[in-house]
């Protein structure tokens, strides 16, 4: 029986890489299956699922499913809606939650710890339990727009954005990260006469790249995958996001190739966003120990 000694560096490395490759395969294969299936007609797609052919571009490969998917649903509109709603929510969430985190860590005010505890306690409340009360609330809220004052936020972008800006998990991430920053920096800025906002904007935020990336990615995933909320607050196609749009493909006879083509297309923005922030995300995970 072979024994791996501390000196046997090459073998240890090989075992480590083998394990990593195995894990990578487990995570990557569903994506490969999705992309390969999107290129095949339904009958071949279903027949290939029982063999390794499911992961290979073999047989009758074409882009037909993509063109059919575009005929079935306004995919460009759905992706635009999701990217717009997600992008704005992430930006506003980072701004608001980082300010909240800053206030919880650096400002002294009465009830601060209690307030933070209450906010963190909301983490254990599933969204489904507040969906209906929130629906009733937003359906009665006023709004000032081009048409003057209107009542009700349903069928709009704002109803998909505003309720999701403040977020306990993101506040928690910022609080944890800010606690780790050297206090001396803040105190030095105060001595120099900087205002609290200047400290937040010019000292703390420039040092917060990793937590910003982490919070952005986690929030992006939550927002991009929204289903229940847009389902109940949006009845007009012009505001529908990608996940509700997926339902367009589930008819009596499901065209699985088109489903896979649609999923492939809507996965692209997620992958692009993650790859853009990958380094900062990993750095933040490594430094804070937070896992999404």
């Amino acid at each position, binding site marked *: 029986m072979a024994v791996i000694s501390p000196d046997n560096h090459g073998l240890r490395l090989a075992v480590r890489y083998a394990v990593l490759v195995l894990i990578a395969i487990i995570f990557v294969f569903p994506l490969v299956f999705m992309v390969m299936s999107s290129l095949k007609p339904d009958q071949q797609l279903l027949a290939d699922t029982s063999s390794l052919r499911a992961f290979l571009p073999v047989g009758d490969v074409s882009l037909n499913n993509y063109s059919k998917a575009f005929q079935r649903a306004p995919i460009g509109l759905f992706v635009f809606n999701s990217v717009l709603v997600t992008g704005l929510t992430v930006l506003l969430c980072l701004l608001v939650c980082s300010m909240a985190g800053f206030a919880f860590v650096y400002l002294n005010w009465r009830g601060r710890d209690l307030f933070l505890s209450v906010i963190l306690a909301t983490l254990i409340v599933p969204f489904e339990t507040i969906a209906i009360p929130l629906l*009733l609330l937003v359906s009665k809220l006023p709004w000032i727009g081009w048409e003057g004052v209107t009542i009700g936020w*349903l069928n709009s972008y704002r109803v998909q954005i505003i309720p999701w800006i403040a977020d306990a998990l993101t506040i928690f991430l910022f609080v944890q990260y800010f606690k780790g920053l050297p206090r001396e920096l803040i105190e030095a800025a105060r001595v120099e006469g900087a205002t609290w906002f200047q400290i937040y904007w010019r000292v703390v935020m420039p040092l917060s790249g990793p937590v910003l990336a982490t919070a952005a990615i986690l929030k992006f995933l939550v927002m991009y995958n929204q289903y229940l909320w847009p*389902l109940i607050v949006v*009845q007009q196609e012009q505001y529908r996001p990608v996940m509700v749009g997926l*339902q367009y493909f*589930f008819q009596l006879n499901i065209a699985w190739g088109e489903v896979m083509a649609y999923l492939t297309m809507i996965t692209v923005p997620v992958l692009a966003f993650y790859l853009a922030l990958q380094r900062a995300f990993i750095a933040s995970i490594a430094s804070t120990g937070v896992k999404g």
Partner: protein
Amino acid sequence: MKLRYLVACTAAAQTLTIGAAFAQTPLTMWYHGAGNEVESAIINQIVADFNASQSDWSVSLESFPQGAYNDSVVAAALAGNLPDILDVDGPVMPNWAWAGYMQPLPLDEAVIADFLPGTKGYWDGQLYSIGLWDAAVALVTRQSTLDTLGLRTPTLAEPWSGEEFMAALDAAKAAGNWDYAFDPGMAWTGEWYPYAFSPFLQSFGGDIVDRSTYQSADGVLNGDAAMAFGEWWQSLFTGGFAPGTSQDPAARDNGFIEGRYAFSWNGNWAALNALNAFDDTLFLPAPDFGNGPKIGAASWQFGVSGTSQHPEGAAAFIEFALQDEYLAAFSNGIGLIPATASAAAMTENYAEGGAMAVFFALSEAQALVRPVTPGYVVQAKVFEKALADIANGADVADTLDAAVDEIDADIARNSGYGH
């Protein structure tokens, strides 16, 4: 002078036309067909034709994907945001009517006198919805299969008895030519279970709930007839006649045309695939387990929302949509059974001698709507779970008793659902 006169007349005509367009009262309509190009094209055409046909009403359509439709309607009802015209799945209609999401449909009954019974949605003695089509289920097989097994061909007038049906499955199993003798469609969960399988229970003499009062399932879902049904149902799986709840959806979709099942319990929407696969495809009536052969009925129907201020306008649109040409267009487009015989005669497949005409006859002769009660939406889920459990080997009596308890508790919680 002539030119000036012509211009004046044109201007006057345009003013009148624009005036008429502005005079149209707007109506909103929601429909479940988003993602289905053919269905969307037909419903859009009906809306356009209606808007152009008169000057009182103007309908605007919003389409939803079917999987998201019911939840969207319920949420909109809570938020007070319902449209004027809704479409609703037949068995769900009583629940929406009871909850106030819908109001009675002010339609002259003479207009729908010739419609298939399953297309008419009545609740509390009033018409609430009407369908342009119905759906039906048949026992799908091949003439060559019957010949190979030496079986007689059942007819509407003389369907197979329960014993004959089981003898057919025995023969198919013994022949060894198929993976399973019978494919009931266990992979299709959800509404398929009560729609497709409760008619077997009703043919045994039981039911999901006591239709005389709609206040209890006791005695009908766990009585002697229901017990006999439950034992028979379980024997399909313990006896190796049918694939169980772990059936692969792909096998359900394609198993019959791939020759894996001798008999398949399937709907008219899948009939064209079977006809294209085999030139000797047969659609047989449901077997009679003692209380008459039964199949499910009621598909999507149109109705007026509870908050609509213009029920007469909504009814005008619905009546317009009930024309035979539209019934036939839907049938030709998506394969459904047209609601009237005169529309069926205009279709390719349901006209006399058409490849699927038998489904119209089945719908007329054997269809039984699912329990007409607001509680059905809960009862359907309880029934589905009970049948899946029994198929997986659960004790029949205990399972049916538990289902009865759950249904009765729900009825009590909702103060009898207004019956």
